[in-house]
């Protein structure tokens, strides 16, 4: 599936819920399916700055596709990073770089998008894209 298709799928899933509690509960569920980062990559260097909770992200390239793994010590943050990874993992770096993340707004998590929020969703997107840029450079 393309990034766009996955985003639409997520928007549809979240569209089934009437209120924020159900959306958050679903996000917490999604957090449980997060492809977990290997312990050896849980280093200071792999912590995304700008989050109140700790978020570690690691990236690998397989067959010209970027594979992300991550973890967080906070469960809601884990859900947020799980959603992002579901969208971006297994995609070509060029696709990740140009991807729009407006779907976050559509699934009712708009408040997490503001760059001044301490949860660091913006930092997470930026970090995932930086990995993609690094791998794109290798491909060029």
């Amino acid at each position: 599936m393309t990034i766009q298709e996955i985003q639409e799928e997520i928007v549809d899933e979240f569209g089934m819920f009437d209120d924020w509690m159900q959306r958050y509960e679903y996000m917490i569920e999604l957090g449980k399916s997060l492809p977990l980062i290997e312990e050896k990559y849980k280093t200071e260097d792999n912590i995304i700055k700008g989050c109140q909770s700790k978020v570690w992200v690691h990236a690998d390239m397989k067959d010209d596709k970027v594979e992300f793994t991550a973890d967080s010590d906070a469960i809601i943050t884990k859900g947020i990073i799980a959603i992002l990874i579901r969208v971006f993992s297994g995609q070509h770096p060029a696709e990740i770089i140009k991807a729009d993340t407006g779907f976050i707004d559509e699934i009712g998590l708009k408040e997490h998008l503001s760059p001044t929020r301490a949860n660091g969703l913006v930092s997470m997107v930026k970090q995932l894209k930086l990995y993609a840029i690094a791998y794109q450079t290798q491909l060029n």
Partner: protein
Amino acid sequence: MQKEIDMLDVLKIREDFPILKREVNGKPLVYFDNAATSQTPQVVIDAIVDYYSNYNANIHRGVHTLSQEATDAYEIARKKVQEHFNAKLTHEIILTSGTTHSINIIATGFTNLLSKGDEIIVSALEHHSNIVPWQMLCERSGAILKVIPMNQEGELVMDVYDQLLSDKTKLVFTNHISNALGTINPIEEIIEKAHAVGAAVLIDGAQSCPHIKPDVQSLDVDFYVASAHKLCGPTGVGMLYGKEEWLNKIPPYQGGGEMIEQVTFEKTTYAGLPHKFEAGTPNICGGIAFGAALDYMNTIGFDAIATYENQLLEYGTQKLLEIDGLKIYGTSKNKTSVISFNLENIHPYDVGTIVDKLGIAVRTGHHCAQPIMDFYKIPGTIRASFSFYNTKEEIDALVEAVKKAKMMLS
């Protein structure tokens, strides 16, 4: 005392705060982040509007009417600060941009008053703003920073303080009340013992001033600092009290207008106190509103405030502890209406996010006091801090919200 409790009619007081009528996420706002900043009563908002509507002008120089009115109002505000803190002299009150600014004036001013090997003592319960400026002072002067440790209850270990003090000690600085835990520190004892070895003392009153009316003369403290926005005033303004002899010894912090007596390219002579420390156009409106905020708080009365807030603390502590797996950090018998807590195996950020959805404002994180979090080996806490305009019903709403968060996050 009973009379004062009756006098504090919380429902009537809430009418003074327009913001308390708003909703957040479709729920009535429950504001429990008072230790970060307090809300603003209408009389203070009116003072701000009145200033900009009627007599906005620069102060201390204009001969025109507006400038004189603004100067008078600003200087009356300084007088109110002096009276509130019971300083002996009006010019012992420096109006600053806040506690951090006040601390930096002193920390910078001591650079040339210290020698290599001198010691300065800080407490383990400090906010970063009362740690970092002193570390910078140590880097500049070669002085050594010593720390009064804390115990599990979140109290300072005073026996160790006794051992740290010596004739090398030149400065001691601690907060009056811990922002992260609410502990009231034994500052009378800290000051007395520091003076016995000839050291000066700075007390950070940012967290105490909303709850206690400090008397700087009876405390015999050398420096006392606070921010207006913690006691119903605006942000960007605060105070530094310093004993006259100390303020005369310390050089100016910033150069500029207002702080000079005479300027030629060969030599500048500085203005006397308090202007020596007030370079540039100050936060005139903020200073005037600070005065209005002190008037407001004093009308309610600090005895009544303390009595009522203690009731909230007791009620909140009891109700929160009924939740299984909830742990309170900072359990000193001597504390103000701050409850810092965590739910077992749940990150404070998660709890904060859920309770915000339910209209409740609490602070989550390390509260700019990372050493305290390191001591307890936790990433942070959820901190609910109560003010005299909060109610027991709001505490009930918090308890329900925390229970809901626990259910969702377990």
